[in-house]
């Protein structure tokens, strides 16, 4: 019978302890058996049995990954019990398993309200803890008044927890500010350090997101900074001031003194000391006295044996490095020593600091030292080193490099480091330098040659991108080469089969350029070739090859032909096509090479063909700005949006959403390859037959061929493969070159070569962070609350405290205006937990009319 079964279950229910003991003996089957038991037990009406079952379930969920969301309703039942033990279990389960998606969430509102209003402070605590963890928008809104009441509770414990909850409530339901903010601020004056810690913690979070709104509270925070003896409180207050001082410089001056006081204390806790130093370095670095003191103190950290302190010392230095490099230079030895530390974290910090010290004069020396480290290090650190060198040297269009010959050869050297995995970046820089620095082409070709002829490198897949760049450079700048034959031979060596097809295609194309160049030189040489002209030249000008003999040119042509013949049957279309193109070209002019030896007729077909090809390759390829696409003017009468909407209509079933591609949303790009792949996928699913879509596609392509890119390659290859057949003859050229002239430095013997830079810079525009409407409404609400508070408090303060200059002249208009302006130029410095936002914090857009700072701080 059902009832006797439930009685049995109740009497013989396994306790939590039994469960745990059982688990220790044997797991997965035991878990599934226990789950069955729990499912039965939890449905019983007896609350004690139910809560034990719930407790066991919570345990399994927390530590053994069992899903407990199905028990949500039972948790609600348990929590309604009047027994504290049950309530505790119930709330714990709720806090652990409820989320915004839990359907029964609505049911607990009343229970929470009841418990929040309870006279038993422990029940109140439970409810507050639960609310803090799972509060939804609705809960936050519905329970705001309860939280408000509790903020003024006579029991410190309750107040403290209510304060902890407030942050969550504010986040979910900003209007709560109007109700609660006053009380929150009142609590700032509490003498209970734990209470204070909680309040300051809340403000720490709030200030991090929106410092300007809390500027009017600076006097309160200042008082805490000066009076408090509790490290936790002080650390949080310092964080608040770090944010406030960076937007209000006058604060920095005022706050510097108390911070120094703390730093000078005899037995100051290391955590507090570090926070002081960090605050000084990040926000008060223009305060000389504080800065100097902080640097002295950080030295103590650097010299300490405790690895934690050493690491933190280095870390702090990297904060101050950008503005005050002298602090780092003073501690150079410690930094270099740290490079050999065993802890990878410490090494990394040291590396960053070393890179901060790099400048024009010492870049060669430091790079030399670092490359030596790299060779001796594990792969991870080795690549970190190479990566940082690459970044530092290429910053601002290689601003730091004076001797490009040295740098190019360094890039080649990097390729030879066994652990090197930075192929892509090196590839990019080799080509980039080729297009920007005319004078470096010679060295570039030299380094490329060395890389190309080495068969061992072909086996290392990490080096393939570099080889690709080397091949491209060798072809593009073949006129600087000492021995085109050698280059062509290297490009077509059998081991190139190890390369991926896309790079092989580049190799072939470069060989073609070499061929064209050589043929051009051969056909244009006027003297009869009686003696074999030197293929090697001693001059270092652009035209290295004085001429080809009949023998040398024909052996070149034959070699190329032989090398490509085997490729004309490869599966990859790109390789096959290029091989065949070159072979076709050779076929066309081959017979006339011999004729040239005998006749001087320069009007042959071959001659014309070669001259034509030379022309094709003669245009100088330059760097392309990332904003070039946007600058392409729209032709008259072209209405992009309208046309593309129609396109989307047609292709909706075929095309994947644009957002998934990694092209910037500024460009409208279309990948035919993607469409084809999608077609194949559709073929095996139940969606409309692919035949229909692809024929629609073909039709559309005929009509709107202009919008289709001809190449399947991604956009960042366009620089290199600029000679790809671009069908868009209608559009004006995308290349934009503006030349920066550069004055040579006084001491250097060889003047720095010209580096081509582009007007708008080459970094892709960073998109500003999307501002959430919640943030805005919160800060608006707070500002409103502070305005009202300011006016009321004025009278109170004049009555109660007689302190000099304690007027709060909060200007209503200013706040409103500045908040409106904030919405227009929303700053990027919001805390998003990502590293990049840290760098942007220093550059907050300053509003022209700042919020008035209380006179205390002036």
């Amino acid at each position, binding site marked *: 019978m059902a009832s006797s079964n439930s009685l049995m279950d109740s009497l013989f229910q396994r306790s939590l302890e039994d469960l745990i003991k059982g688990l220790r003996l044997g797991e997965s089957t035991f878990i599934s058996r226990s789950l069955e038991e729990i499912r039965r037990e939890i449905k019983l009406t007896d609350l004690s049995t139910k809560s034990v079952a719930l407790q066991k379930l919570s345990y399994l969920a927390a530590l053994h990954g069992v899903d407990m969301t199905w028990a949500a309703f039972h948790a609600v039942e348990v929590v309604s019990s009047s027994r504290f033990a049950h309530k505790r279990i119930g709330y714990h389960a709720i806090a652990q398993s409820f989320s915004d998606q839990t359907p029964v969430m609505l049911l607990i509102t009343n229970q929470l309200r009841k418990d929040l209003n309870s006279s038993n402070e422990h029940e109140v605590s439970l409810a507050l*803890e639960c609310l803090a963890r799972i509060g939804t928008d609705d809960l936050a809104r519905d329970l705001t008044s309860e939280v408000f009441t509790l903020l003024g509770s006579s029991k410190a414990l309750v107040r403290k927890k209510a304060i902890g*909850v407030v942050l969550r409530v504010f986040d979910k339901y900003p209007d709560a500010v109007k109700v609660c903010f006053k009380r929150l601020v009142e609590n700032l004056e509490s003498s209970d350090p734990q209470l204070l810690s909680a309040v300051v913690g809340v403000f720490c979070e709030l200030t*991090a997101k929106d410092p300007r709104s809390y500027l009017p509270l600076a006097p309160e925070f200042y008082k805490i900074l000066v009076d408090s003896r509790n490290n936790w409180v002080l650390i949080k207050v310092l964080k608040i001031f770090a944010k406030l001082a960076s937007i209000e410089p006058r604060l920095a001056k005022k706050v510097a003194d108390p911070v120094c006081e703390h730093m000078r204390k005899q037995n100051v806790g290391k*955590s507090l000391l570090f926070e002081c130093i960090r605050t000084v370095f990040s926000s008060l670095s223009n305060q000389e006295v504080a800065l100097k003191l902080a640097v002295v103190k950080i030295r103590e950290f650097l010299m300490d044996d405790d690895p*934690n302190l050493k690491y933190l010392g280095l870390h702090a230095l990297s904060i101050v490095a950008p503005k005050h490099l002298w602090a780092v230079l003073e501690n150079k030895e410690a930094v270099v020593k740290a490079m050999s530390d065993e802890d990878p974290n410490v090494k990394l910090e040291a590396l960053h600091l070393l890179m901060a010290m790099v400048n024009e004069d010492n870049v060669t020396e430091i790079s030399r030292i670092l490359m030596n480290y790299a060779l001796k290090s594990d792969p991870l650190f080795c690549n970190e080193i190479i990566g940082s060198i690459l970044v530092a040297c290429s910053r601002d269009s290689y601003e730091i490099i004076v001797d490009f010959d040295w740098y190019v050869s360094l890039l080649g050297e990097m390729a030879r480091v066994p652990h090197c995995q930075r192929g892509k970046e090196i590839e990019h820089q080799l080509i980039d330098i080729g297009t920007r620095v005319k004078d470096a082409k010679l060295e570039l070709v030299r380094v490329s040659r060395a890389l190309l002829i080495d068969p061992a490198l072909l086996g290392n897949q990490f080096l393939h991108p570099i080889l690709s760049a080397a091949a491209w450079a060798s072809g593009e700048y073949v006129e600087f080469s000492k021995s085109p034959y050698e280059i062509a031979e290297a490009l077509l060596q059998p081991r190139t089969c190890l390369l991926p097809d896309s790079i092989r295609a580049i190799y072939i194309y470069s060989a073609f350029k070499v061929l064209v160049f050589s043929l051009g030189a051969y056909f244009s040489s006027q003297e009869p070739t009686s003696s074999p002209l030197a293929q090697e030249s001693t001059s270092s000008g652009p035209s290295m090859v004085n001429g080809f003999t009949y023998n040398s040119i024909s052996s070149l042509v034959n070699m190329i032909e032989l090398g490509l013949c085997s490729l004309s049957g490869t599966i990859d279309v790109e390789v096959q096509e290029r091989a065949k193109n070159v072979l076709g070209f050779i076929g066309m002019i081959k017979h006339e090479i011999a004729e040239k030896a005998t006749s001087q007729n320069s009007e042959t077909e071959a001659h014309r063909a070669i001259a034509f090809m030379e022309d094709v390759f003669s245009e100088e390829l330059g760097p392309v700005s990332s904003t070039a696409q946007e600058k392409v003017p729209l032709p008259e009468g072209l209405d992009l949006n309208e046309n593309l909407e129609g396109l989307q209509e047609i292709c909706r079933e075929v095309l994947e959403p644009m957002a998934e591609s990694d092209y910037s949303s500024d460009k409208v790009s279309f990948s035919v390859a993607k469409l084809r792949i999608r077609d194949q996928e559709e073929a095996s699913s139940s969606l409309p037959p692919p035949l229909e879509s692809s024929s629609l596609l073909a039709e559309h392509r005929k009509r709107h061929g202009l919008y289709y890119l001809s190449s399947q390659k991604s956009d960042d290859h366009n620089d290199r493969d600029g000679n790809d057949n671009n069908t868009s003859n209608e559009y004006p050229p995308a290349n934009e070159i503006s030349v920066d002239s550069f004055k040579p430095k006084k001491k250097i013997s060889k003047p720095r070569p010209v580096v081509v830079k582009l007007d708008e810079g080459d970094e892709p525009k960073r998109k500003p962070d999307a501002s959430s409407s919640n943030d805005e409404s919160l800060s608006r609400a707070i500002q409103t609350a502070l305005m009202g508070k300011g006016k009321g408090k004025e009278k109170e303060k004049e009555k109660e405290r007689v302190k000099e200059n304690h007027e709060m002249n909060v200007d209503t208009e200013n706040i409103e205006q500045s908040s409106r302006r904030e919405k227009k130029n929303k700053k990027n410095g919001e805390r998003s*937990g990502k590293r990049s936002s840290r760098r942007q914090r220093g550059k907050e857009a300053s509003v022209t009319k700042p919020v008035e700072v209380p006179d205390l701080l002036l």
Partner: protein
Amino acid sequence: SNLSLQIRFILLQNRQGKTRLAKYYVPLEESEKHKVEYEVHRLVVNRDSKFTNFVEFRTHKVIYRRYAGLFFSLCVDITDNELAYLECIHLFVEILDHFFSNVCELDLVFNFHKVYLILDEFILAGELQETSKRAIIERMSELEKLE
């Protein structure tokens, strides 16, 4: 959520990677939790005792310390004060020690609800709310009476 909580989660794991305590202050799917626990364990278990007690973890930081066979790991924001949180961990261990007299892993296994209770007095919604050992101990004894 837009909140950047101070503490995102706390983990107690043994050397083999078994989780003895897991409290998350951010919403995470079960599978995500598994991944996190696995990754954190891998991060801390191989580090030499001479190394720092802080490691980067995804876009945050993990501050950890080993006590006997257990790793106590706190995940915090990148900008948080590492030393303060080390003290926080130590405080937690001291309190556990007080309640379980020379606490060992088994104590934590069999008293997991009590450990959670202590933790909830310590940290609320990812923020440190009580730093006085005495206060927490007093509070716990009050709670005991209620059960």
